[in-house]
């Protein structure tokens, strides 16, 4: 436990991330005024996922965490995806 180095992020860097998040918010709101047909949902979810990734990696420091947290986080997301997609074996074919 001695290799415990604390990762410090500068205000400037964090502000940069915030800037990115604000821009992406503007993009998703802007895009929502255009009708892309069935692509609407994928696009907005894609932008949301970009934002979520930024928050996770830098605000939540996941980029600097060990393997345990990274792997388990990804497993959680996969489990969530399974919950949603496997329900569609039923719903989509009923």
């Amino acid at each position, binding site marked *: *436990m001695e290799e415990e180095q604390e990762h410090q992020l500068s205000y400037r860097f*964090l502000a940069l*991330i*915030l800037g990115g998040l*604000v821009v992406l918010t503007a993009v998703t709101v802007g895009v929502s005024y255009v009708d892309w047909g069935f692509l609407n949902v994928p696009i907005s979810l894609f932008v*949301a996922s970009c934002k979520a990734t930024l928050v*996770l990696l830098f605000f939540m420091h996941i980029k600097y965490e060990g393997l345990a947290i990274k792997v388990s986080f990804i497993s959680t997301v996969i489990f969530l995806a399974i919950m*949603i997609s496997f329900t569609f074996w039923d719903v989509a074919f009923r």
Partner: protein
Amino acid sequence: MEKAIDKTGVRIGMWIFLYSEIILFGGLFVLYAVYFHNFPEDFATGGKELNRIIGTINTLVLLISSFTVAASITAVQRQKTGQAIALILFSLGCGLLFLVNKYFEWGAKFAHGLYPNSDRLYEEGPGFNIFFGLYYTITGLHGLHVIIGMILLSISLVLVIRGRVTAQRFAMLENSGLYWHLVDLIWIYVFPLFYLVL
């Protein structure tokens, strides 16, 4: 028992807790996905009833507060207690602003006769009812998490003021911060799913 605190361990514990929160909302997102599949048009009409401006403002408020919380940790690490206190206070202010906005938003919906079990929801048909059912459940649960997050941040604030959170020992602040970011994270998905569906 004079061992150094294993910060990584504490963080692992906190993250595991966050996973359970993610799955908690995940259950509701399962419902959202299925009902969106069943009633795409109604969800679009429902989405138009929501105020996109308030939604966007709330998104920005949460993003900014997330930033200030992250920055407050940097401040603590740099031993700038004053800055840290200011940043946490600001974040709390953002949380409050979010809730006030939410209050007015819900209030406006109620005034339009859109609340669980309302006559209007009966009349407008099943898909519309489900959209608002989900809207109230998910944003309600999210609001509850905002409140919990604010409580955690307030505790951390007190600890910072008392000098119990230091550059060597800031697990409490860090964990409150993680919780706060999670609240933000969920909103990042809630926002497009309810306010921006077409």
